[in-house]
Structure formats: C-alpha cells, structure tokens
C-alpha cells in the first residue's frame, strides 16, 4: 500500500464523521419514534383504590396547574348535609361560608336539592388536585370523591413526573380509548 493511500485527509475524516453522525441521528430518531408509537395507545391514570392523597399530584405535574383533578361519583354520593369532603372537620356552621369549607381553593360548590339533601359539584378550573377533599370523603364517607388525570389537560409525557414520584404506585397506563379508572370500573376501589 503506498504512502498516498495510507494517509487519511482532513476532508475524508470530516465526510466520514458527518456520514456517521447522520446515520447515528437517523437511528436515534427512528428508535425514538418507534418507542413513542408503542405508547401512543396508552395514557396515564390514577387507580383510586391505591391513591393515598399525598399531595404530590399538585406539585409534581410538569404543567403549571396539575392535570389531576377531583372527580365525583354522583351515583355513590350520599348528598349529605354534612359532607366531610366539603366541610372543615369542625365547621362554625353548616353553610357555604369560606371559613366552613375544607377546600383551600374553593373548588367545590354545593346546591340545595331537597331537605335534607345537597348536591356537590367540582369547579375544575379551581381544583389543583391536592386530594384534601378525597381524604375527608374516604375517612368518613363512602369514597365518592377521588382523583383522576384529566385527559383534556394532560400532555401524556412518556415518563410522567407524578407517576415517578407517586409513593403508592397508584399511577398506571390504561388504554387511550378507555382512559379513566372510575369507581367500580377497573379500579381496585
């Protein structure tokens, strides 16, 4: 082999390097897209039977306001006058005064139905997903309030920051076309 052919010119080195880098980039992009495709038919959701209302849903979500919100099973609700998900444990009186309400953001409203029943509704724009009302409902009531990832808000990160932090492993992937774990439907609770 002559001295001429043994030498690698700077141009050859640059060309080879660029070609290699391009191939590597293509491979990485293909792998990334392939990997994404396999998860596109699944979304994150909270199993209400495992959730312990630790508050991390509020602080760990990458969105400025968490995609986790309280949902309310009206079929299970007792429509109680003294709702432990709505009222402070020791309310001054059983009315809608802010000092009597449990929710720090005022995200639950109630409406008189008929004596002695009241309907409770979640104001989703105000809810930060802290789960304080869920704890009150679980502890004293029948668990008709619980947390769920709202998929009109969630951006479905491949690695969900809340799922990573969740101390009770309550987050799991569910089919995208059936994205909620409602009480009595796939949820342990």
């Amino acid at each position, binding site marked *: 082999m002559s001295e001429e052919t043994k030498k690698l010119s700077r141009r050859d080195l640059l060309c080879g390097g660029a070609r290699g880098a391009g191939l590597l980039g293509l491979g990485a992009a293909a792998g990334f897209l392939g990997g994404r495709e396999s998860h596109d038919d699944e979304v994150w959701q909270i199993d209400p039977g495992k959730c*312990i209302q630790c508050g991390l849903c509020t602080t760990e979500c990458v969105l400025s306001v968490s995609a986790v919100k309280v949902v309310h099973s009206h079929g299970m609700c*007792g429509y109680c*006058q*003294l709702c432990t998900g709505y009222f402070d444990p020791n309310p001054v009186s059983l009315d809608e005064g802010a000092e009597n309400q449990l929710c*720090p953001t005022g995200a639950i409203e109630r409406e008189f139905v008929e004596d*002695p029943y009241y309907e409770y509704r979640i104001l989703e724009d105000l809810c930060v997903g802290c789960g*304080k009302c*869920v704890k009150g409902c679980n502890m004293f*009531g029948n668990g008709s309030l619980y947390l769920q990832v709202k998929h009109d808000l969630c951006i479905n990160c491949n690695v969900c920051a809340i799922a990573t932090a969740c101390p009770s492993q309550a987050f799991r992937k569910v089919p995208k076309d059936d994205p909620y774990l409602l009480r009595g439907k796939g949820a342990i609770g």
Partner: protein
Amino acid sequence: MKNEPGELKPSLDRRAFVRSAAWGSGVVGLGALAGYALKRTGSGTQTEKPKLGAEFSYDVSRFQTSDPALKRYDELLRYRVGIESARCIAVAEDGVLYVGGDEGIQVVDGEGCELAVIRLARPVQSLAVMGSDRLLVGQKGRILVLGLDGRELESWDDFPEDMLPTSIDVSELAVHVADAANRVVRKLNEAGEGIGVIDGRSGVVEGVGFKVPSPYFCVKTGADGLLRVTNPGAHRVEAYLPDGRLELAWGRASFAIEGFCGCCNPVDFDIFPDGSYVTCEKGLPRVKLYDAHGVFTGVVAGPEDFPEYLAVVNAGAHKAAGAGIQAVIDPAGRILILDAIAQKLRVMVRKESGNE
C-alpha cells in the same frame, strides 16, 4: 521529540493532544456527574419543587384521642377473628358469639375459643339469634334461617334483589330488617312474611327519612318495646312505635366527644336493659355510652384504642371508606367490639366503680 535546527516546531504533538483530550473529557465527565447528582438529590435550586402549605393537609389528629377520665371500661380480652372480612356479630343468651364475614360464620365462646365454623357461599351482612335454636343470617337479597348447628332450615327470599340487610332485630313483636340499599326498615312476622315498611318520614315528631350513605344501618328493640333505628346521615338514633311512626330522636353532629362525627354516624349501637346505649362511630373509631335520654355519659373505647384502624384511615387508604365498628352487649354485661379493619374482637368490662 527533538526538532532539527531550522525545522518548524509543531504546535501540538500526538501525545500532548491525547493527554489534553483525556483531561478535557475527564473534566466534562466530572461536571456531568456532579450536575446529575445535584439533580437527583434535589439540592439544586432550579429543580426544587414547591411544597404544599398546611392548608392543604387534612388533619383531624386533635380528635384522635379521648380523655382518659371519660373511660368507663377496661379491655379484658382481644383476639383476631377467624373468618375472612368479618363485619357483623351477634351474641346468644348463653354467651356464644357468632361472627359473620365473607366466607360464613365463626362460632366462638365467651373467652374467644372457636367452637365451629359455618361455611356459606355468599357474604354475611348481618346476624341475629332467634329464640334458642335459630340464627338469622342477612345476605344480599335474602334472609337465611339456620339451626345453631349450621343446618339450613329455610330461606326468606321475598325481598327486592338489591336488599342489603345490614342489621336484623328479633323481638316478641316482630323481626325487623334494616335494608341499607333501599333505606327502609322491613317488618316481618316469624315466618319471614313482610307485614310493614318503615321509611322514617311519618311520625309523632317530624321524620326526615333514613339517610344511609354507607352500608351501616342498625335496628334494635328496647325493653320499652320501641324500635330504635340509626339515621346516620342525620347523626341520630330514632325510636319508632310498633305502627312505624317516629316517636322521638336524639343525637347531633359534632367531632366533639359528645356528638357523632363525620357525615354519617353512628354506624351501630346496642341497648342495655336499663334503656341506656352503647354506640359506635367510624372514621374516628369511638365506642361511647349514652343514657336512655341520649345524654353522653362516657367512653368505652376511644380512637387511641384502635391503632390499626387509625393507621389505615390516616394513610388515606381507600379501604378506610366503609370500614365499620360494631358492638354488642353480652348476657354478662360485657361489651364486645368488632373492629372491621384490624379484624379483631375486643371484650370490654366495666371498670370497678372506684377506678372510674
């Protein structure tokens, strides 16, 4: 490398290049490692997450202890029950205790020794001893009548399919079944035929109807012949005349020891021969005493006596929702308490009068 005179000195030889490249890589690697470690430990100010304030925590710890001076009973015995998902108890005149759960009934003597197990295919919701030889077993949609040896004698099935019989009371006047699913008390004769329904709305005093958000709804007939029924959503115990009209009611909502806590308590009660009551609450597990007029007189067991129960409810675990406490008074005047979370039975005896 030594240069000949007049030869241009190269700015960097191969060895120096490799050395400096290795140094550079090492420094970059160390920096990356440090950044990664900083991120993992969360000590970097950029990655620190905000914490929720105290206003976001649900704290009822101040209600989870009771004043020792109010305690009127001591624990004599505590044992784990031997039936899966035990939820109801009944005691016979001879002191034999029946514990009902998902797989059937455990029969134990007054000291907690197992006498027998009666296996049943469907979960037991409630139990009552009828006379000296029959056991009424409440199951969803039916009442099963067993001999005390476990033989099936008959099945009363003339009920709605969704009937949830959470309590059965047998008196000289009738058999009463509390149906938590339909929020009514069903009055039956000794043959199990329906002879009336109490909905809690009509009476001498104004009735509000039975409010039963959780499957806890209890009936007992007092020595005065009035049927006592819990109305947990109204936080009271109501007394009904034999014709089904509401005669009187007592109780109020409060986390204070004198009241009934949460959205729906009391979940269970029993009546002493003098007309006074022992009541049970869930959420804050409390077993308390009230006189015949509904005036609070003391504590049998406070929340601090149920550590397993408190551990579950404080952790926010879903199984806290709907977990109850049940109590019966045995012929010796002892109070038997079933803790549905710990699956334990406690035998409580009255303190000596000097120790109260």
